[in-house]
């Protein structure tokens, strides 16, 4: 049971974003820009950052949703799984390993990010903007994960919900559906 009254048909973050639309708008705008806006990081790479942070924060809803989005974008399910288990041996570029490590450190605490790991990312070809966006994506998912779990939101009753959600995140993005979410009512 969520800690506050949320609509039954909207598990995880969606119920919260519908509960508080005034705060949802900037959160959605920020996410849409960071994960879907113009970037030298692919959408799949940015979803991996969200996945690694959500996994580290043990947020089941966000981890499952962003794993599904990363899988759908990359067309395979190995990379997200391996990145969650061990960044260093995962099948991603050296630059992505450094950026995912920065994301993991940001998750622990902003103060855990060191000049050395930032230099490692730069040596692997990461730009300042990529480093900036990685830290801000990681920080944003520290917000999301705490919001979702701190208010005790429900998990979807049917795991197939995540496939529908991933399809929406890939083909529509993070902005609110123009028609709302009433079609999800059973």
């Amino acid at each position: 049971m969520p800690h506050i009254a949320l609509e039954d048909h909207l598990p995880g973050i969606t119920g919260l974003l519908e509960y508080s639309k005034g705060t949802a708008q900037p959160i959605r705008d920020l996410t849409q820009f960071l994960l879907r806006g113009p970037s030298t990081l692919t959408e799949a790479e940015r979803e991996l950052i969200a996945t690694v942070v959500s996994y580290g924060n043990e947020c089941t809803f966000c981890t499952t949703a962003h794993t599904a989005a990363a899988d759908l974008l990359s067309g395979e399910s190995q990379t997200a799984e391996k990145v969650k288990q061990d960044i260093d041996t995962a099948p991603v570029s050296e630059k992505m390993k450094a950026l995912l490590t920065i994301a993991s450190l940001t998750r622990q605490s902003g103060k855990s990010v060191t000049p050395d790991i930032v230099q490692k990312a730069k040596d692997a070809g990461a730009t300042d903007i990529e480093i900036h966006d990685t830290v801000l994506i990681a920080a944003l998912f520290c917000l999301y994960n705490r919001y979702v779990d701190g208010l005790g939101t429900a998990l979807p009753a049917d795991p197939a919900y995540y496939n529908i959600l991933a399809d929406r995140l890939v083909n529509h993005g993070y902005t609110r559906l123009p028609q709302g979410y009433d079609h999800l009512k059973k």
Partner: protein
Amino acid sequence: MAYIELNNDLPGIRGLMAYRPETEKALNALAETLLRDDDNTLTRGERELIGAYVSYLNDCFFCQNVHGALAGHYLDCNIDEIDAIKKDFYSADLSSKMKSLLAIAASVQKGGKNVTEGQITAARNTGATDKEIHDAVLIAAAFCMFNRYVDGLGTWAPPDRQFYVNRAPQRAEEGYQSSVYK
């Protein structure tokens, strides 16, 4: 010195916001709505206090001083009184509702799963509404973002705490959406 070349000398989050205006707008819009919107039964001072407290728990010098000074401005407390609240809010002269919301915020800072049914019940027993509980959780979560953004990119912060106290009245007057260059 920040870990990336910001091409400006602004401190804390302001340097990051000037560097990346594409994300500045949404970040300030969130702060403006969450901390200042008048359609809210928590005062601006109470909301700033939650932000300052979470920033203190995250050991973010810039944010805890900016928002501690703003809380002090609204609540008519000096810097020592704000420090005393951060160190031990249970002993402070605050409503039982605010104490229960600060306890929830402290749990959110550790991780969302740390919020207990008992904390929610305690907050309700002091009269906290769903929206107040929601806002306390989201303010705490938002500062877990802001603090990580500020420290994760190694931004600098003016060491003199009076700097933040001096700026608070202007920020309270103008709000967050003009906060970058002023």
